[in-house]
């Protein structure tokens, strides 16, 4: 694919469907904070009751993520950061967008492997996911990795939305770009808070009851 169109597809996929899925993910997870194990299980069930859910996952999550991630690594490789001489906020964001992109790429591969892929393998089920998550995030190393991964991903998401508006010629002038910065910052704060609240909710004891059943399986899986 030619450079211009590849980059346009990369940019579009970042917003639709990946950003929309991330927001959906935050809302589903938030059910763990709001409704506890019951609420979370219902939220996961709601998603899995969607028609043609496998194709939804394939075309709205996996393939877009794969293209966006791999092409994104190439974009990150092409940059030659010069923060040393240009310490502006926009230049920081330029560099951070690339660093957080690489972190998110690694984090998401690990995260999909330890959750969704384990369902495919039959090591856990959709209904047991709350307890499964409890077992992961109660291990300090994995919890820290989750915190770093989640914040890197939400930063990349919010700053990416800002860049999308510039790249498609929606925010043209400096004032428009500044205002959209504030809006995207707000988006970052809200989505990050929702993810972090659900992460802490997964750590709580109420998720432990469902967890005990599968603890042995998980420990053999990810140590």
């Amino acid at each position: 694919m030619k450079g211009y169109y590849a980059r346009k597809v990369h940019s579009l996929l970042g917003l639709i469907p990946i950003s929309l899925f991330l927001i959906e993910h935050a809302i589903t997870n938030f059910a763990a904070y709001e409704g506890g194990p019951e609420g979370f299980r219902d939220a996961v069930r709601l998603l899995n009751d969607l028609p043609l859910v496998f194709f939804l996952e394939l075309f709205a999550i996996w393939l877009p993520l794969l293209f966006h991630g791999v092409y994104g690594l190439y974009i990150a490789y092409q940059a030659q950061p010069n923060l040393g001489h240009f310490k502006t906020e926009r230049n920081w964001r330029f560099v951070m967008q690339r660093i957080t992109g690489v972190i998110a790429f690694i984090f998401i591969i690990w995260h999909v492997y330890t959750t969704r892929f384990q369902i495919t393998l039959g090591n856990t089920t959709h209904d047991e996911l709350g307890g499964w998550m409890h077992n992961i995030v109660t291990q300090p190393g994995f919890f820290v990795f989750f915190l770093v991964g989640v914040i890197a991903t939400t930063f990349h998401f919010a700053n990416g939305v800002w860049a999308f508006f510039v790249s498609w010629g929606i925010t043209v002038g400096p004032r428009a770009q500044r205002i959209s910065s504030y809006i995207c910052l707000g988006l970052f704060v809200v989505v990050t808070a929702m993810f972090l609240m659900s992460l802490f909710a997964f750590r709580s004891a109420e998720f432990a009851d469902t967890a005990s059943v599968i603890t042995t399986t998980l420990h053999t899986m990810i140590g």
Partner: protein
Amino acid sequence: MAETTAAPNAGQNTSRRVKFVITRQDTPETKPYTEEFDLPYRPGMNVISALMEIQRNPVNAEGGSTAPVCWESNCLEEVCGACSMVINGKPRQACSALVDQLEQPVRIAPMSTFPVVRDLVIDRSRMFNALKKVKAWIPIDGTYDLGAGPRMPEKKRQWAYELSKCMTCGVCLQACPNVNDKTDFIGPAALSQVRLFNAHPTGEMNADDRLDMLMEGSDGIEGCGNSQNCVRACPKGIPLTTSIAELNKQTTKRMFKRWFAQ
């Protein structure tokens, strides 16, 4: 050229010296190295007058005789762009870099995003090739008298004039983290010129040709990563990022037009 001793207050200044650390390179192929120079201070001196002093008396800080430092300059009033170089880490024009306003020692290096010819002399051909590629001109010649073109609204002329201040100096390309050996990105300067010529009532007649040039190959507008260093570095204050975003809009429209209207 003024002699150092001709200045009326030369006596009180002879003791003051200014140190320069210059990145030098003897040929395009050889490795760069730094050389230090210890020059007498003169009131109001700029980087060009310092380089002239080295040319007059090519002795480095150790007292050894050396080849004079090569550089390019023309207008000496920041309108030609020839003397662009990296001064204390920032790409800018040497003629408007007053030593009184610079941190010392003053570190000078060539804008190494471009091929270095010798010392501070660089080859900016890629910028002029970029202008040719995007057709940064207005075709007005015909086999007969085409008559007067459409008038340009005064309000439009005012902002377009700002874009016309570009002197192809290369500072924006040096500042851009996406202009390097790993990419073909055409750089902010030529992009802004596309906006300028597409804004002109006569130039507008060929607007699509220019936009197409930004959308084919691997050097087009998609190379911009929104670090926005260009607009901070531009010595003429050209709203480069506004130009790029406006062209993002124009190329996006062009893309859909090509898909659905053909």
